[in-house]
Each structure stands twice: as structure tokens, then as C-alpha cells.
């Protein structure tokens, strides 16, 4: 088990290396560089050249790359040009916001997605099933920014119940956090609720057809025990994969949601960094984000082992 995780971690290194190479190359290919953003429109060519020299942007491409990787090997991801803050610090400041939002959305996803999937499967081909699957289809078809806008129009502009945007940290004011995060979390979760409901339903239907379920029912076990202990426990294995995918979809989806609701999270930070050619921030931030996503995938694989003894005892 520990061996599996170690091997997966080792396998992640080349992937992250290629990720950083792609990011590095992509950022240098973007026309324009940070000097024009810092210098502003009125900067003279001499001033721009000075800024470029200060940032080391006048050096040859490969030298810049070599320097970046050398610093990376020492655990230094550089400083954000735009924020004047070091990349790791800026990431650590913004990441909790995105994580809190994603966690909230994940709770919504698991509660609604899992429940509606299980209920639909238990009442296959009834009105409840059809309604649940209709909502799931709506969920995967409504763009999250559209739902976000509709909620803003209804709950913020028309009714005035919730603020249109902004963010209050949970540690500062839990009620404020709920007020600012609920609409973003719902709009972020919608797609995933639909996905999870559909997959839970199909997995449950497959499991419910198995012989051991019939045996369990035949020997007179209460329905609740059959569903929870025999069916759901087995259905959870494929569902875990989906939850792993959902976590990365949530982090990815937060880019749009954070922009829409002006939430100062990782997505907004990276979008602004790309648009303002903040090279170190994009390179470091994307590397950290993808590394984080890769870790989540490995954690999901480790969860399999916990849920499924067959994986645990399998020789590596």
C-alpha cells in the first residue's frame, strides 16, 4: 500500500516536470511581457528596458529557464511581479479560500448527488427516478456561470437577501462566510451534483442486480441493511473515482465562479496572473495547483485500498 503510493508519487514527477515546461514555454510565447503592465502606458522604451533588465527578462530563454529550475530545486518559486509577494505566500493566502469554497461545494455535491442517485436507483423507472434524472440532466447542462448570474439576479438584486459578491473568511465571521459562499458553492456544485447522481444511479443499479443482494434479501435482512451494507458499500468504489474527478473539476470550475462572484481565491489569482503576464506567479501557481490535483488523485487511489480489500492485498 505504501509502496503503491510511493510509486504513484514517483510517477507524478515527470508529469509535473512537463507541466512546468509547458507553462514556462506558454508564458514566454504570450505576446507582451510584464514590463508594459508595470510601466503602464506612459512608460518610455528606456524605462521598459530597465524594468525588463531588473526582472531578468532580457536574458536568453534557456538561461531564464535554467535559473527558474535551479531556484525551484531550492524550493524557491520566485516573487509575483504584480503583487510583489512571493509565489508560495500568495498561493498559501489564496488557496484556503478556494479550498473552503470547493469543500462547501463538495458537501453539496455528495449530499444531493449521492442521495438522489441512490433514491433513483431504488425506485427505478418510477416518477421519482425520472424526476431525479431530469434534474441531473439539467445539472450537467446548465452552465455554472449562468446559474450564478440567475441566482445573483434573484437573491441579490431582486430580493436583496444575499450580497452580489465578495468574500468573508469563515474564521472571521462564519455567518458572513455562509452568506458570501452559498451562491458560489451552489453554482459550482450544480454540474457535479448531476454527474454524481447519474453515476451513483447506474452503479447502484448494477450492484442491486448482483446475486449477493438477492441472497441478502432472501435471508430476510432488513431493506436498510441490504441497501447500506451490501449495495452502497460496494457501489462506493467506482463512486470514489468520480469524487476524485469531481474535486479537480471543482478546483478548475472555481476559476469562473471566483471571477463571477469576485472571490479572492486561487482561480482569480491565476486568471489575473495570466492576463497580466505575471510569469513567476503563473508558473509557480499552476505548478502548485497541478501538483495539488495530482496529490488528490493519489489520495483517491489510496482510498480504494481502504474501501476495497481486493486492491489492498493485490501484489504490486
Amino acid at each position, binding site marked *: 500500500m505504501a509502496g503503491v503510493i510511493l510509486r504513484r508519487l514517483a510517477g507524478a514527477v*515527470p*508529469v*509535473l516536470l*512537463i*507541466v512546468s515546461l*509547458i*507553462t514556462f514555454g*506558454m*508564458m514566454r*510565447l*504570450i*505576446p507582451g511581457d510584464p514590463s508594459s503592465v508595470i510601466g503602464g502606458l506612459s512608460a518610455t522604451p528606456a524605462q521598459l528596458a530597465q524594468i525588463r533588465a531588473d526582472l531578468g527578462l532580457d536574458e536568453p530563454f534557456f538561461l531564464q529557464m535554467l535559473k527558474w529550475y535551479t531556484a525551484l530545486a531550492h524550493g524557491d518559486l520566485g516573487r509575483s511581479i504584480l503583487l510583489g509577494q512571493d509565489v508560495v505566500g500568495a498561493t498559501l493566502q489564496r488557496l484556503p479560500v478556494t479550498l473552503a469554497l470547493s469543500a462547501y461545494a463538495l458537501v453539496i455535491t455528495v449530499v444531493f448527488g449521492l442521495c438522489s442517485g441512490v433514491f433513483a436507483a431504488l425506485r*427505478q*423507472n418510477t416518477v421519482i427516478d425520472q424526476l431525479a434524472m431530469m434534474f441531473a*440532466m*439539467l445539472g*450537467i*447542462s*446548465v*452552465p455554472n*456561470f*449562468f446559474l450564478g*448570474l*440567475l441566482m*445573483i*439576479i434573484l437573491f441579490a*438584486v*431582486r430580493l436583496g437577501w444575499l450580497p452580489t459578491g465578495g468574500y468573508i473568511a469563515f474564521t472571521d465571521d462564519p455567518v458572513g462566510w455562509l452568506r458570501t459562499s452559498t451562491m458560489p458553492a451552489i453554482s459550482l456544485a450544480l454540474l457535479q451534483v448531476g454527474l454524481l447522481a*447519474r453515476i451513483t*444511479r*447506474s452503479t447502484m*443499479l*448494477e450492484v442491486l442486480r448482483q446475486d449477493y443482494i438477492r441472497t441478502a434479501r432472501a435471508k430476510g435482512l432488513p431493506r436498510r441493511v441490504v441497501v447500506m451494507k451490501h449495495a452502497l458499500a460496494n457501489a462506493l468504489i467506482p463512486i470514489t473515482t468520480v469524487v476524485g474527478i469531481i474535486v*479537480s473539476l471543482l*478546483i*478548475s*470550475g472555481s*476559476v*469562473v465562479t471566483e*471571477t463571477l462572484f469576485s472571490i479572492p481565491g486561487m*482561480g482569480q489569482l*491565476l*486568471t489575473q496572473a*495570466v*492576463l497580466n503576464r505575471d510569469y513567476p506567479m*503563473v508558473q509557480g501557481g*499552476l505548478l502548485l*495547483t*497541478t501538483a495539488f*490535483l*495530482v496529490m488528490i488523485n493519489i489520495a483517491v487511489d489510496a482510498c480504494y485500498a481502504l474501501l476495497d480489500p481486493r486492491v489492498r492485498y493485490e501484489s504490486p
Partner: protein
Amino acid sequence: MNLPDAPSRPDAEADIQDVPIHRQHPAWMTLRRLFRHQLFLTGIGLFGIILAAAILAPIIAPVDPTKLAMRYKFRPPDGTFIFGTDNFGRSLWSRVIWGAQLSVVIGFSVVLLNAIFGTLIGALAGYFRSLDNGLMRVNDALMAFPAILLAIGVTAVLGPSTFNVILALAVVYIPRTARIVRSSVIVLREMEYVQAAVAAGAGHWRILRRHILPNAMAPLIVQLSFLFAYAVLSEATLSFLGLGAVPPTPTWGNIMAEGRQYMSEASWIITIPGIALMITVMGLNLLGDGLRDVLDPRLRIQQ
């Protein structure tokens, strides 16, 4: 050992001849099954509305979608302006219809690029073991990026335009398509009929073209129909963030982005393109579900 003779019936042969022989082409039978599939038909219907609007745009929306008419601004939907007007008095009907055309063109182009390059990369990686490791590492790296950030990065490199959005979305989705093709090719490569073809002296290309790829088509077609939905959705998202086609060219995303400032007094600027987007995505999703049920029963969500 003597087996008893089968009871002879004089009319046995006639019986067999009476059974109608279904000499229908398999493709025809698949089509018939598709057109009995309720959800597929609903999907075709919904997507058909959008497709018709896109194709007929010059006829049904003759008013220039970029034509300004300040005195008509913020007209709510009524008899004169079917979908109302926006902050510049432009006809939202025209803008949404021409936006449909753009969405369909972008979605179709992304699907086409995926069909070509996703198949190529997936087939090469799946069939030639020597290429697998290298190709899939790059593939994994591209898939490790949060999708929308990669698309934002690529459009930032290339600059915002319709063509560049197509390229950006192709870069984002081709690795996913390649992975699906690869996984079918890896299974098919080990099939006995492929070994038979190898034994008969068929070359690599012939085996790939004649024996492997035709059998890998079903999951690919299903993937491409969902991909169309993702592409339309992502294009709208990018142009909502200001990275799509440059205004005043109307796209559903940039119409909604402009409408944001006026959402308290003119919410139809947001809701109408939003609903159009939803209809498109839902139509394509239903279509994809139908195709999956009929073409690829292994992946089926049990009915």
C-alpha cells in the same frame, strides 16, 4: 450409434422460407434503434432548433447583430423586438441567432480537430508500445492542468479571436479524446482477429485502418457528441471571461458578460442567451446519452 432421424415434416422447408430474412445493413438497424430512443429524439429536437437557427441565421435574423440603435435601447421582449434589445439598442434576436451560428461553428470545429488528432494520437499510443510512454506523459501533463486555465493560457498566447478559441479548446480536449481512443485500441490490439490479420501478413497501417479503428469508433462517437457540448460550454465561458471572439461579434458568452452591468433593469440580456446555451448543451448531452445506449452498451446507464 444410430441417431434417430429427425421427424420429417414435408412443410419444414416452407416454414424456414416463410421466416422473413432481415438483410438490413447494420448501420440501418442502429439508426432505427436510435430513432426509437426517446431521449435521443428529444436531444435531436433540442439541438435541431439551435442548428436550424445557426444555418438559417441570414434569413431569420436579417438585422445586423452589431447595428447600433440607441433610441431603441433596453426594449423588453415584445412584438417588435422578439428578444428585446440591449444597452446599445441592438436586436437581441439577431445577436442570439448569430451567436448560435458561432457556437455551432466552434463546437463543430473542435469536434473535427478532436476526431482527427485525438484518433491519430490515441491510435499511435495504443498500437505502438514504443510511442505509448512518451505520448501519454505529455497527454497526462496536459490533462493535469485545470481545463479552463489551460484554455485561458492558450488564448492569452494566441490572442482573443474565434479561430484561436477553437485552437485553445482543441489543445484542451484532444488529450482526453486521445486517451479514450487509446484505451479501446489497447484492448482491440490483443484481439484474435488482429492476430489473424498479422499472421496473414497485413501491415501496421492496414491493421489499424481496417481492423482496429472501425471497432474503436463507437466510444469515440459517443465522446465526440459530449465533447460538442463541452466545447460550446467552454467557448461561452471563455468569451464570458473576455477571451473569446472580440466584441462586437456576438457570442452567447460576451452577450451575457455585457448584460451583467444591466442585470437589474434588463435581465433578458442574460437569460435569453443563457437559455439558448442551456438548450444546446442539454440537446447534445441527451443525444450523447442516446448514442451511448445504442452504440456502446457496455457504458450504458441502465434503463
